[in-house]
């Protein structure tokens, strides 16, 4: 009986129904060549498993257990919500466009000077709520008072270099809202995108940033998905080009509406 490689693999992977399994077993019993092929696939599977088994017995790194215990939870499932925060929208990669957009001095300075940590800052449960840079509201993550004030008042062109929160770029989003990127030292260092809706700044993306290794050229693969989370959010939502200084000032005067 002819037994294909696919059948043998499916057999070894436990994917055959009883009848197909019996066929293979019969072939194994009567044809040493087929028996060898099955044995080879079994051996590969077993070797692979054992090659990676060590990790199961290693002590768990504490920071992973801590992340599972303490990282913030979002329980709402409406569209614009916390659960969307870290989702990188993978539809449009458009790498060249991204590269060009992020050549703005403001952002490239950020990108070059931070090493990005974990996706979300673990400060939500650490700081008293009135001091927290953001809080949950109606299933959204909104900027806290201090961050909101910076987002409302500050202009990228005039803000002090040592401001607690620095605004990056401002732009119109697909939903018609004004959105702004920011970096803040609050909460241990955060970067994100906030969009103005009604009375709040809703956080659309948020990343942890640390100034520690700034400028040393060190590269940490650790949170490198972070700038992507922020940049892809902008990339996804931006309509046209970012606001220039005059348009930014005009938007600020109109209360970001």
């Amino acid at each position, binding site marked *: 009986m002819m037994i294909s490689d696919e059948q043998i693999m499916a057999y070894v992977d436990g994917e055959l129904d009883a009848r197909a399994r019996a066929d293979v077993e019969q072939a194994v019993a009567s044809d040493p060549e087929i028996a060898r092929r099955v044995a080879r696939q079994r051996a590969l599977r077993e070797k692979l498993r054992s090659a*990676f088994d060590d990790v*199961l017995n290693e002590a768990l790194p504490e920071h992973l257990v801590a*992340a*599972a215990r303490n*990282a913030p939870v979002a329980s709402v499932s409406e569209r614009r919500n916390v659960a969307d925060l870290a*989702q990188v929208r*993978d539809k449009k990669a458009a790498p060249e466009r991204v590269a060009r957009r992020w050549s703005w001095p403001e952002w490239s300075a950020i990108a070059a000077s931070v090493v990005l940590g974990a996706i979300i800052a673990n400060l939500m449960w650490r700081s008293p709520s009135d001091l927290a840079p953001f809080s949950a509201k109606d299933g959204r993550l909104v900027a806290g008072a201090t961050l909101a004030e910076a987002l409302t008042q500050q202009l990228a062109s005039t803000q002090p270099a040592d401001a607690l929160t620095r605004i990056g770029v401002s732009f119109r989003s697909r939903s018609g809202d004004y959105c702004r990127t920011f970096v803040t030292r609050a909460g241990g260092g955060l970067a994100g995108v906030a969009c103005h809706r009604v009375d709040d700044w809703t956080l659309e993306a948020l990343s942890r940033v640390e100034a520690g290794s700034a400028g040393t050229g060190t590269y940490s693969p650790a949170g490198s998905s972070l700038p*992507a989370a922020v940049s892809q959010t902008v990339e996804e939502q931006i309509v046209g080009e970012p606001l220039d200084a005059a348009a930014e000032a005009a938007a600020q005067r109109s209360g970001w509406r």
Partner: protein
Amino acid sequence: MSRAVDLFRDEIIELLPRLRRFARTITRNPHDADDLVQVTVERALLKFGQWKDEARLESWMFGIMRNAWIDEVRARVRRDRVFAPAEAGENVGAHTSDQDAIALQSALARLPEEQRMAIGLVLVEGLSYKEAAEVLDVPIGTLTSRLARGREALAALLLEGER
């Protein structure tokens, strides 16, 4: 809700060893692997409200991990920081002294991403074809052909290594 969240957190902690293992099969080095696990755990918690009991938690989290890794690789490409597979492969065996394991891990590291994930899910993690296809968001036929090509490539690389 908080009790449900606590249970969810406990289940995630129980899964950590397997999440770490799958992360190693796809990232090619232990440091990236644990970073990827952390991102996965954080994303999973942020998506808690979207978690439904229909799928097994591990499949759901493997899917989150896969997406996080795709994002990561994309980000690296964007920054021209892609590791050359061969170079990264040297990193893999760092945590084991078993020569066979090192050879296998290095061989796996040289496979294309999509084959590595298919093999990691089915051969290492023991998922069914159906579950693995769902995690990877591809039809079962695509999964099995990736598995077949990956296995052939692995076998060839291992033979080469023995010579």
